[in-house]
């Protein structure tokens, strides 16, 4: 391209940039009109360039012409848009548009209410130095039962109806086997929470599911005692359920903890007065827990005289049901859009 053609293209670029700026800055219709005259008027800057096209050699003439037309189109479009904007600004929009018409919506995604419960639990325990770990769902009977001080023929096994995949292989009946796996691999201080699925041969009904979420916690170190256990759980209760929530520990039995405790929180629905949510007791049971049984430490090779610890297990699905007032556990697993949408 000749120098003449190139310089015209540069001039067109400048006209486009500066013209757009002038139009955009025009504060009223008078200013807009003078911008129009300056750039697009009969003797305006664009007309100047057009009049010079003839001076360019033939080969480049078409390119310059195309570019000039393009700039004209851009500036005209900008003028029109600016004129509309100025007009509606002076009249006010409400004069013509019914602003009560519905907005244009968009789909809002979200996590499952049980996921939210799990995440919040993990976050609260993270404040107390707990890390989140996971473990396999297909588990050996050693980790699922034996290492947790549960003999296979004990009446305690009655509490868990188990899916066996093979003679020594089960779908884990709780997330507790991860306790044993973690302790076999790491030395104290151990503070972990373990979210995951567990399986029991319960028929699918309003309060049971054959596959359900569980979250396990374990803290082991020198000097971890029942007092610390209680303080940690109270911290959790206050942060998860609210500072006004009371908690109580009462005796229970698990083969892998001793002393064992069930933890109840005061019923938020009736404030302790008794209602159908809390079965008229004023309390809702949220976890099974206790001090880790020395037999478990022995099974994983920890010195039970040196280390003590506590463990707990919760059902996030049940907690989500209490939290949102969901009457039937099966609703959580149906994947119905109108149900899931409520918790976004």
């Amino acid at each position, binding site marked *: *391209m000749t120098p003449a053609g190139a310089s015209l293209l540069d001039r067109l670029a400048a006209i486009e940039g500066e013209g757009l700026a002038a139009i955009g800055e025009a504060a009223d219709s008078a200013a807009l009109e003078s911008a129009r005259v300056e750039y697009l008027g009969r003797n305006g800057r664009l007309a100047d360039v057009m009049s010079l096209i003839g001076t360019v050699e033939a080969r480049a003439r078409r390119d310059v012409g195309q570019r000039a037309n393009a700039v004209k189109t851009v500036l005209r479009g900008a003028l029109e848009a600016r004129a509309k904007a100025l007009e509606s600004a002076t009249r006010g929009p409400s004069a013509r548009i019914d602003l009560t018409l519905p907005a244009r919506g*968009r789909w809002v995604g979200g996590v499952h209410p049980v996921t939210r419960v799990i995440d919040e639990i993990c976050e609260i325990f993270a404040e107390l130095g707990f890390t989140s*770990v*996971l473990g396999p769902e297909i588990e050996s009977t050693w980790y699922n039962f034996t290492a947790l001080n549960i003999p296979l023929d004990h009446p305690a096994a009655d509490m868990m109806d188990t899916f066996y995949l*093979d003679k020594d292989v089960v779908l884990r009946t709780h997330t507790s086997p991860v306790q044993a796996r973690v302790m076999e691999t790491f030395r104290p201080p151990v503070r972990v929470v373990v979210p995951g699925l567990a399986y029991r041969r319960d028929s699918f009904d309003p309060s049971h599911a054959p596959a359900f979420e569980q979250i396990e916690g374990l803290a082991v170190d020198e000097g971890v005692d029942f007092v610390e256990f209680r*303080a940690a759980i109270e911290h959790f209760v206050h942060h998860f359920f609210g500072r006004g929530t009371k908690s109580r520990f009462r005796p229970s*039995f698990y083969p892998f903890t001793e002393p064992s405790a069930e933890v109840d929180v005061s019923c938020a629905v009736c404030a302790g007065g008794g209602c159908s949510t809390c079965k008229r007791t004023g309390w809702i049971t949220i976890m099974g827990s206790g001090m880790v049984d*020395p037999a478990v430490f022995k099974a994983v090779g920890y010195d039970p005289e040196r280390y003590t610890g506590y463990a707990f297990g919760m059902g996030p699905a049940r907690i989500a049901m209490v939290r949102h007032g969901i009457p039937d556990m099966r609703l959580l697993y149906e994947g119905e859009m*109108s149900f899931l949408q409520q918790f*976004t």
Partner: protein
Amino acid sequence: MNISFNWIDELARLRGELRDPRALAERLTMTAAAVEKIETVGAGLDGIVVSRVLETRPHPNADRLTLCRVDRGAGEVLDVVCGAPVVVPGAFYPHVAPGGELPAGFRIESRKIRGELSHGMLCSEAELELGRDKGGIMRLADGLEPGTPLAAALGLPDTRLTLDLNPNRVDLACHMGVAREVGGPPSPRDFRGPAWSPEWRDGESEVSGAGVTVRIEDLGRCPRYMAAVIRGVRVGPSPPWLAGRLLAVGARPISNVVDATNYVLHECNQPLHAFDLARLSGAEIRVRPAAAGEPLMTLDGQEHKLSPDQTVIADRDRAIAFAGVMGGLDTEVTGDTVDLLIECASFDPAGVRRTRTGAGLSTDASYRFERGIDIHAQERALARCVELILATAGGEADLIGLRAGPAPVPAAPIDVRVSRVNQVLGFGLDGAAVLAALEPIGFEALPGADGGDGAGGAADRLRVSVPGWRTDVAREIDLVEEVARRVGYDAATGQDRRFRPSAVPADPRVEKAVRVRDLLTGRGLLEARSLSFMPEDYRGNRAVVSVPNPLSAEESCLRSAMVPVLLRRLEHNYARGNRNVRLFELGTVFGYAAGPGREEEADGTGRFEESGRVGAVVAGARRPDHWSGPGLDFDLWDLKEIAGSFADRLCGATLEPLDGAGAAEAAGSGASLAGPWLSRGGFRAVKDGRTVGVAGAVDLASVDAPPWAAPAFALEFDLASVEGRPVPAYRKTSPFPAVRRDLSMTVPRGVPAADIERAAREATSDLLRDVRLFDVYSGEEIEGGRLGLAWTFRFRAPDRTLTDREVESEMSALSNALEERFGARIRRS
């Protein structure tokens, strides 16, 4: 487990606030066993009195009615029409007079029944809300004073507490056990009447005396069997105080003899059984394994065929009872029984479990034997039962008691260190406090251990005996729990401890899951959770893990992929009339390991493999409907954006087209992500040469969709391919304007757009910042066999405004490259 408040009160002599049943329930809940329910038994019995039927005659107009002359005390004799099958002249029954009310609030008036006037009614247990028995009117013991208020005679009203026992605390299944927890040790006054203290005759496994022989054939199944013989009893209704106790705990009074055995069960946990001695052939008791196929009809009228792993009580000829579970019908005590043999035995817990599961039974007796009874208190329990029978049914007890099996060995004492108690609990207790917690519930301080005197002085190591009823206590830690419980779990409030953060690193999969959820929820998808099971027919080409003991055929296998499970959720939404579905789910899929399995090959889990997956399905409107105009449905290009972002942003993978044949091939491999749903092809995400995800339109054949359903699209990715959150490095943004150039061209059909874009980038410098295809067109104005594409290219330099000349030179290089490589024809306008 039902507990009578009055009974506990009598045994424990409750004091202070515990005299309120609610306070007692609270104490039990917080220290021993949760009280699930508190209810009143025997309320509303005000107008109901003990009455005596003087004479009866048939109703003239109705076969099933009886006319009774009833004495309700104070000289008041009334005519009452009664519909019970049996009314015994001279016997005693509860009566409600005209003007009185039944507990349910039903008012009784004098009225004519089939032409005969009836003044009030004789009542059944069910009508009095004392039990479920509607079979007949409630017969009371003879010898009562007519006119006595029924409630007073039965010791009612009472409060029934329903306990949810922990599996280790079977000792709380009786009133003595509960009384120990809330009071002091029970007093001797609970044993009324002259003690039966027989001459005990012992035998290793066989013993004779009192006219009978007892033989244990397998001491492993039955370590001990005691028997007492009572002759000349009169079987009849129990005295009202005893009947009232059983009613209060929800048991049904049957007869004085049977009720006595039940009473002792509820009092001190020992299951007992009374046989009609006259019906035992050979006056013999044999405890033996059942013979295969041997018949036995139990008390409840059920016929059983036995197997050798079950244990029976037999006489000389046949089985007469399931050991530790239930007696037989043939030897049960009836109204005609005169001589009794009372069994007081101890059976192996596992054996009782086998016996009862084989018989499909679960009884009060088997519950206790399976969990452990107090083998040291059996003589006392048997004596207690004999006393009660003598007192309520008369007769004479033989002075010889039989004991077969070795005498039980006392439980070993346990040493408990005060320092250990404090290490675990942190309560800061001294030895005296530890003993003060243990002694009221039967643990006794013994001399020994550190040479302590047992008084809980300065010695760290205390030695305590274990009471026979605490079969669950064997270790030091068991005593630590007892101390914690007795001091109260709430003693631990309000203190803080310093802690060290975990040495265990967080599992990276947790953060990966967060990244996945963020990406998909940001695109308007909702997270679903479904059960991990599926029916067999979802399997496609993959060997799925079947569950040997599934709940139903619908749940007979473990899922091998996420999309098939999500398609069922899609169908569920269709069934609810919803065409707009956007779901994803993270979960585990299962299969058989192809090569060597997990490291624990030895424990059997190595046969299986499991891995994390995410699946998603979208169908229907891209945005909610709006009045401004019709919206568009999700299409393949929306899916490509989701899958492409997933691949690129989360996995560092590239999305490639996948044709139907490729999809079928991918579905065939062991760890397949694809399935029949992808048979039309779509995309695959490739990372390091490996397929880590697939996406595509869902084959309609794999979904049960209604006619109004929109096309559905799905994807499935391997979670292991998701990377940790990257930390991007800052790149300077340019303050100088970008220059845009549009370019229309035609290319031969079949040239992939992605190749054109790649070639355009290769032909230009790094001034080319953005390439966008904004139109694809075909039609008459295009030469045959060609396709029109319109592109926008944006150029920008970080440090200057680009001149037209620079941009033109980039564009001509680009145009030349496309013309040469693809035969593109650039359109000039």
